[in-house]
């Protein structure tokens, strides 16, 4: 009888490079740097690693397809290595591969690493759907101009209309979310963007896709992050403060959200479903009371707003009240984007899911420095790839 992954796997080491416009760092440089910090943190030797999962998204640039660039950069000794990809949820997907490998009993010590060299593409943000190959050959015919900000901006329009927010009030709510993350970014030495940005700055910024302006959209960055995982009953052999995986769930869109007319385009169904599955797996009954901190997928401010509701923390249509009350601020009840989030830390696609876990891991071990929260016990990561009605969402829960 399948029981899920709760408390079967522990993270004993993690590493994360600085994220940013790292023109002088190759994908191999980033891989090596993240890997080095990870094995030092775990206190293991490379030869102890029995299998590896790589996460990277772009395939005609960055590190290409397959694992060869990765396995050769690290000179992994002919061990099993798998490349996995699931859009912007790739990082968590790599961690999933590693965790299930350990939980299955096939391996004891496994590496998960995510990396992306996004700044090699030569333009701002991700390519639009005709090039992004979200729908393979089909995308080129039917929606060659659907950009990421465009797809999410439509969620903002629908959300404002559904819950009666005026364009000004709606945009201001989004602005508060971004401003909060920017403040956290100033306390986050490895983050890409480290500057305070006021609500007024956000409101006045140039529009990318209405209502999303420049400061409603996350940083476009290079970076890598990694983790070493092992069996829960072996973890204390490596360190006194391992972090245990309580849940690791992914939900993929069924298509009902786009093809039904009942979809309100004001929430993300996959976040909702992955959240429920993760809470069930981790044994969490009341997320608003039991989750201490989060890193959710804030590629655009409207995402974060809907995530509060979809993850069952704020009531539907009223997340703005929690935003106004500072509920998700660093000094709030459930700090979100503690390290600045995608917004400020940046979003090298393959690495982001692991970077989220890195922050939760450091917080749980009391090593988050200027951002350290008081006695956190349970952290949630939320990692999403695609567009609101057609996406994949990963929700992970880690704790002591």
């Amino acid at each position, binding site marked *: 009888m399948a029981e899920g992954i709760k408390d079967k796997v522990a993270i004993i080491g993690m590493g994360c490079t600085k994220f940013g416009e790292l023109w002088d760092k190759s994908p191999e440089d980033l891989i090596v740097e993240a890997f080095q910090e990870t094995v030092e943190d775990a206190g293991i030797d490379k030869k102890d690693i029995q299998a590896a999962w790589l996460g990277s998204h772009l395939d005609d640039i960055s590190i290409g397809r397959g694992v060869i660039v990765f396995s050769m950069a690290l000179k992994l000794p002919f061990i099993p290595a798998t490349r996995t990809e699931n859009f912007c949820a790739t990082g968590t997907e790599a961690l999933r591969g590693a965790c299930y490998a350990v939980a299955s009993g096939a391996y004891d010590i496994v590496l998960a690493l995510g990396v992306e060299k996004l700044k090699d*593409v*030569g*333009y*701002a*943000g991700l*390519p*639009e759907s*005709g*090039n992004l190959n979200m729908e393979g*050959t*089909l995308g*080129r*015919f*039917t*929606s*060659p*101009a*659907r*950009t990421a*900000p*465009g*797809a999410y*901006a*439509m*969620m*903002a*329009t*629908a959300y404002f*209309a559904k819950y009666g927010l005026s364009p000004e009030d709606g945009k201001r709510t989004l602005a508060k979310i971004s401003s909060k993350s920017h403040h956290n970014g100033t306390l986050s030495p490895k983050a890409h963007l480290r500057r305070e940005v006021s609500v007024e700055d956000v409101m006045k910024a140039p*529009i*990318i*896709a*209405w209502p999303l302006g420049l400061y409603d959209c996350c940083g476009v960055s290079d970076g890598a992050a990694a983790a070493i995982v092992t069996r829960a009953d072996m973890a204390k052999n490596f360190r006194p403060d391992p972090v245990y995986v309580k849940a690791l769930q992914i939900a993929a869109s*069924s*298509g*009902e959200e*786009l*093809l*039904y*007319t009942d*979809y309100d*385009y004001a929430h993300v169904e996959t976040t909702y479903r992955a959240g429920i599955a993760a809470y069930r797996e981790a044994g969490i009954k009341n997320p608003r009371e039991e989750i201490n901190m989060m890193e959710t997928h804030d590629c655009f401010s409207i995402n974060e707003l809907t995530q509060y509701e979809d993850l069952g923390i704020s009531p539907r249509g009223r997340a703005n009240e929690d935003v106004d009350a500072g509920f998700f601020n660093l000094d709030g009840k459930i700090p979100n984007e503690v390290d600045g989030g995608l917004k400020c830390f940046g979003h090298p696609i393959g690495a982001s899911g692991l970077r989220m876990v890195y922050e939760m891991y450091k917080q749980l071990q009391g090593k988050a420095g200027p951002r350290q929260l008081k006695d956190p016990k349970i952290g949630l990561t939320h990692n999403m790839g695609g567009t609101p*009605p057609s996406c994949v969402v990963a929700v992970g829960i880690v704790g002591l």
Partner: protein
Amino acid sequence: MAIGITSYGAYVPWNRLGPGTNGWTARTERAVASFDEDSITMAVAAAINCLDGLPRQDVGALYLASTTPPYKEKSNAATVSVAADLPFETLSMDFADSLRAGTAALQAAIDAVKGGSAKQVLLVAADMRVPQPRSEFEPVFGDGAAALLIGNSEVAVHLEDSCAVSHEMLDVWRAVGDAFVRTWEDRFVIEEGYLKILPQVISKLLDKNKLGPKDISKAIFYAPDSRRHREMAKKLGFAETQVQDPLFSTVGNTGTAFAPMMLIAALEQAKAGDRILLANYGNGADAFLFRVTEEIEAIRNRRGIQAYIESKRILPDYETYAVWRGLIDKAPPTRRPSLRTPSPSAMHREESKNLRFYGSKCKRCGYPQYPPQRVCTRCHAKDEFEDYRFSDKKAKVFTYTHDRLGPTLDPPLVVSVIDFDGGGRMFGIMTDRDADKIEIGMPLEMTFRKFYTSEGIHNYYWKCMPVRA
């Protein structure tokens, strides 16, 4: 047996160059196809208007006439045929290379029905000729399309007689490799060509039928511009009230589509008993004598010229038009990756979905969905669906945004999610819209457009737009 026009449809693009356009020096207004239109897309619009409410599977042939087809060796008629959702058993034929191609196709259509090779022929004429900037043609050339359904039952406009002459002369031409129309000296072109030949074929036809100018209710004839049109009317002996307004100051000279479009404009006002003369010119001339029947009332509701004339946007500047036509290689507003070529084998596989715009309708619960689904998204019935065409369905805006990042030659890019009347929802790129006037719930229609061209391969698909008329 009466043979003639049983239905009609036309199309005039939304965008206009006119006195409000910065950099436009003429006093005329003319219709210009948008960056996402070409002769094929305009032909599809006219064809679908013509076939409104009629069973598509009964059309036996489609003739496409154009001097500006997107492909030089590949049937453009085949593309129009599929987008208009005509059956596989259709004779699709391309008429090209002459301003008279539209009326030559008309004669061929009449003959096909008369000869029995088809019960109905859909003939479509479309043109998008690019005049050389600041030439004498620039104030005059326009873009547009017209479609006529020719049949032998319930004939609304009966063809009584026709005749044609062929005339070899280099008066107005484009050779392979020429970007713009070229002409010889105007005196030669007009005196030895237009003014000499066109009246001959008209006289021939009228004399043969023992008719004079006063017997004609409406005369529609080609002219290169409004001055020559007035001159010809006078020469032919028609009074101003008898002559169909050639719309040179609102639509323009639409090349091969001109004669059929002006015919449709005339038919929109015609009543039973009217006698109509249509004459066209281009390396020869042809003339047709029509008699309008009572059946004209049954097709009064077709979208012809009237429906589109007032629905327009005056382009803010000449530069926009010049960029659309590739006359200026302007830097794009944002740096974006170049679009990759679509795969012809994949395009072929997706023809029904992408060009015919078929979704599926679940036989069990009746829910229409696009893209077509083998497993119904509502009741999960597997492989219990029938084809459901969305191209002629109306829709409403569910949500939208102005995307200033996405590539478009008519910024801002408006992307939307649209709900179809009767069921079904899809992601839609919106074209021919006033970006500041979009609202949730706004009514939309679908329009066949060229999404982009990559390495010479044109990618066609459907966009949504605010209802034109």
